[in-house]
């Protein structure tokens, strides 16, 4: 088909003179990882809180949590990203908004992307947490309360340890999703892995090599995540319980 393969491009110095094209790729790889991990961490914490709130016997708290989940789950990720990046700085108090707009553009892109991915994913994590808690036998909560635990102790010692174990597999797929979703952040100019791939095409005119490299990098991340989560799953298994040894 007349395409001339050239895997050597990765080792060539870039047109802008800042290292090699492989260096660009590696930079994007690091941004993707830093962005996804920081957003994942926030998503886990927020998602756990919101998911728990959805199950508590207080209609204000659970109503708030439901609204949160529906808002962040039902607006397209791309739209959310634009809202955080373009609209949110205008809505902030003036001095805060100005400080944001005067900061390093990379910081602006990174922060907006992190908040966007974190909140979007937290809504999904919250749903997993809620379904984990609700899938426990209803008698477990009563058993905890009957022992004299307060409601929060019942969550802490009885419900959550089991719920968390049950939701490790669905959380794995959310964890994988956050790396894949992070590619959306290239649309506001953040030079993460996918953006670097596109940039490479522009500079080297070798699209196949560039995107094969990008693909392999995403695959590598997700294989590591999958094995990591499988390890977690095996180490929290409860003897004699479903799926246990």
């Amino acid at each position, binding site marked *: 088909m007349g395409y001339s393969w050239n895997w050597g491009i990765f080792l060539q110095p870039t047109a802008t003179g800042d290292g090699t094209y492989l260096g660009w790729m590696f930079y994007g790889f690091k941004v993707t990882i830093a962005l996804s991990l920081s957003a994942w961490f926030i998503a886990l914490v927020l998602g756990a809180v919101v998911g728990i709130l959805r199950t508590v016997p207080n209609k204000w708290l659970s109503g708030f949590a439901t609204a949160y989940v529906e808002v962040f789950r039902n607006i397209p990720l791309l739209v959310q990203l634009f809202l955080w990046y373009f609209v949110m700085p205008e809505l902030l108090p003036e001095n805060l908004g100005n400080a944001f707009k005067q900061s390093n553009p990379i910081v602006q892109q990174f922060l907006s992307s992190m908040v966007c991915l974190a909140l979007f994913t937290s809504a999904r994590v919250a749903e997993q947490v809620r379904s984990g808690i609700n899938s426990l036998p209803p008698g477990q909560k009563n058993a905890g*309360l*009957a022992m*004299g*635990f307060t409601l929060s102790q019942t969550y802490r010692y009885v419900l959550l340890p089991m719920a968390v174990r049950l939701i490790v597999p669905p959380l794995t797929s959310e964890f994988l999703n956050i790396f894949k979703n992070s590619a959306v952040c290239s649309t506001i100019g953040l030079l993460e892995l996918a953006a670097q791939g596109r940039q490479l095409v522009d500079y080297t005119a070798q699209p196949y090599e560039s995107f094969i490299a990008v693909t392999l990098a995403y695959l590598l991340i997700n294989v590591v995540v999958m094995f990591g989560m499988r390890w977690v799953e095996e180490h929290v298994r409860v003897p004699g319980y479903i799926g*246990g040894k």
Partner: protein
Amino acid sequence: MISMNKVSKHYGAFQVLTDCTTQVQKGEVIVVCGPSGSGKSTLIKCVNGLEPFQSGEIIVNGVSVGAPATNLSKLRSTVGMVFQNFELFPHMSIIDNLSIAQLKVLGRNQEQAREKGYKLLDRVGLREQAEKYPGQLSGGQQQRVAIARALAMDPICMLFDEPTSALDPEMVNEVLDVMTELAKEGMTMMCVTHEMGFAKRVASRVIFMDQGRIVEDDSKEAFFEHARSERAQQFLAKILHH
């Protein structure tokens, strides 16, 4: 020890309990029986406040269960409860199941809690299962652990909610034996159960419920020999036939 006065409860328009009144004295063993849906489980769950009720009053050891100011957690820590489905905590070893509330609710230290736990496991004949997990035990063993777990809190009385209903027939007796033993030691007990043999041997009184009302509340002799209501007579005829 437990006193109920005109306790009523409804879910929406559905009346679950109607004017239930009874007393349980210290050391008494009360068997609560009746057809399914008669409100007996709901009644004993009202005793430790697991089920709220709309009117009437329940006093446990001088504390009003329904009063808004009552510290329900504190009250519940003094009332042992055993459930139909055992409800052991599956992610904890047996000994941890027995210790956790002692540590977190009663503030005992690890050593005291485990010592108490082992002693109670000995008592229900399961000392050698201490390090296993609930899922590795049979139903009968799990229920004996659940009884031991409740006893670990040194309760002033025990509530049993159909403790043998979820068990295979051959495991029923090992659980009833533990309960009989407990009754002999003078524990105040309220048991929802269909085990009429247990009632005949152990109960001080039998409460018969139907459609959310306490229909009979009498000594076991009076209940088994000449139940007054027609509904109870029918019930007994069906159950004792086997």
